[in-house]
């Protein structure tokens, strides 16, 4: 058995090395960074230890803007995309004949490059000197005035960001919900049908409770994912998100680290830890809420 022991560790060694270097050490280090005041990345020196970095970040208008953007994005896209995905997958499970085809189409955005397709959304929504863009044309057709969704007013930019985010996250949710719906025993529906249960009641009293663990899983991962939004925004508004006023918390972290305003790993660390604290809090709240409403069989 002694030999086995050694071998066991040997099998784990590569994973342990990778994880140690790139996950565990950085995790400790990020806290260290966040408390080192006045860290200079060139000379690798710092003045002192304290909460200054947090204070700086929390007073940085760019950070506050990023927090506001992120919370708005989360509050809009998570409930909307979950409900929409639920509706679509309910619809899908009602059409056995063409289900495969529609499912394949709906899944397409999952395998596309967020940055690349974001560009398409940008040209669809952007207003330039040459053209108002297709979306604005549609708006004009229905009697509205053109809006520049990419460089225009805040609400318009937020709308595009939310729309694109939902477009990107829906495939995963639809897929998961469709398979959850398919796994509900048909007999429950037959029983409900024989009992003359109205459709709405079947949905609220049978379908929803039966798939509630899945819905809850999607809500939690949806919150976590939406709080980490970044590349969708880059795709639409370019890398200088602060200038566009559309930065997200994760974007703020990266901008602090690198790029035009970069070179401040301490501030980046403090912001990342703040984000982690927010996500952790929201997830805990979610877990508490779910205890009451989720049925685990």
């Amino acid at each position, binding site marked *: 058995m002694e030999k086995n*022991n050694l*071998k*066991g*560790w*040997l099998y*784990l060694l*590569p*994973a342990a090395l*990778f*994880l140690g*270097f*790139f996950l565990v*050490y*950085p995790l400790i*280090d*990020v806290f260290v*960074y966040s408390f080192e005041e006045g860290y200079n990345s060139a000379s690798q020196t710092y003045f002192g230890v304290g909460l200054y970095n947090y204070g700086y970040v929390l007073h940085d208008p760019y950070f506050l803007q990023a927090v506001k953007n992120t919370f708005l994005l989360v509050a809009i896209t998570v409930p909307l995309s979950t409900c929409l995905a639920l509706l*679509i997958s309910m*619809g899908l499970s*009602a*059409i056995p004949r063409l289900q495969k085809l*529609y499912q*394949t*189409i*709906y*899944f*397409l955005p*999952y*395998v*596309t*490059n967020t*940055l690349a*397709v974001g*560009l398409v*959304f940008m*040209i669809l929504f952007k207003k*330039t000197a040459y*053209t108002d*863009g*297709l979306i604005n*044309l549609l708006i004009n057709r229905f009697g509205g005035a053109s809006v520049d969704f990419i460089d225009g007013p805040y609400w318009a930019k937020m709308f595009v960001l939310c729309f694109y985010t939902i477009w990107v*996250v829906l495939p*995963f949710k639809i*897929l*998961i919900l469709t398979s959850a719906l398919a796994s509900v025993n048909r007999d429950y529906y037959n029983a409900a049908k024989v009992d003359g249960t109205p459709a709405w009641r079947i949905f609220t009293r049978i379908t929803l409770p039966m798939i509630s663990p899945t819905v809850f899983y999607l809500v939690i991962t949806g919150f976590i*994912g*939406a709080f*980490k939004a*970044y590349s969708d925004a*880059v795709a639409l508004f370019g*890398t200088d998100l602060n200038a566009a006023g559309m930065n997200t918390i*994760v974007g703020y*972290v*990266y901008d602090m680290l*690198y790029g035009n305003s970069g070179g401040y*790993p301490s501030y*980046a660390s403090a912001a*990342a830890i703040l*984000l*982690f604290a927010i996500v952790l809090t929201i997830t805990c709240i979610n877990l508490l809420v779910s205890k009451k409403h989720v049925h685990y069989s």
Partner: protein
Amino acid sequence: MQKKTDFDKIERAVRVRGILANTVLYVLLTLWAVMVLFPFYWMILTSVKSYGAYNSEYIPQLYTLAPTLGNYIDAFTAVPLARYLLNTLIFTAATTGLMLLVTVLAAFGFARLSFRGRDLVFTLFLALMMIPSELVVITNYVTITNWGLRNSFAGLILPSVTSVFYIYLLRENFAQVPDELYYAAKVDGTSDFKYLWKVMLPICRPTLVTITILKAIECWNSYVWPRLITDNEAYYLVSGGIQSIRENGFGRENIPAMMAAVVVISLPLIVLFLIFRNKIMEGVSRGGTKG
């Protein structure tokens, strides 16, 4: 007879309601399908419009009568698109391959071999799943910079290799293989490594396929880490490449050429998806997370 007509009426009403509901359903589902497909159509359409034609359309046309492949030539000549694609291919293949190796070894270590402290290690290990990548990226950036690995494949690949979740997924699958197989192999004098290679891996092929697919998609589309660690075009991946094309490619805003690049970048994964549709969707629903 009074009663009979009554029943007829109910019957007809039910049938009409069914047809109506079905129609509405199909219309709505098709509407969303159009919403999903339209950006793809638009990018292909725009990519075959000539630069002049596109810019002269104040009202964008929904079709074109004079398709051209010129934009694709531009996309490959004016910017190093082929380089981006090759980089991404190397990055994806190397990262996925290394990940598979590390994951298989670690999962085997956890699932099959019994050593003191295994459960403790595994519990600690599971706790690692909760660490968001945003937290560790900062130090990794500094580490890679200090090692002088910026703008190199090593710098791109190394921090992207391990995934706690995939090790966990594979270990769970390994643990389902009955112990009797292992003992039988031992009795026959099979070495641990041969057992892993000849028995475990074939049995757990579906999970291996799943994590390979997921990792490959993730690599192909990765943006954040490559962007941090590369500022030399020679090491750009497609995501970074497209961003640089957007910001300073093609001189002026050459949207058709941009769209041609977007098509070229999106195509490999879409083709792969259409071929391995069922495997990919099954894999994602088994172990995927995104957004």
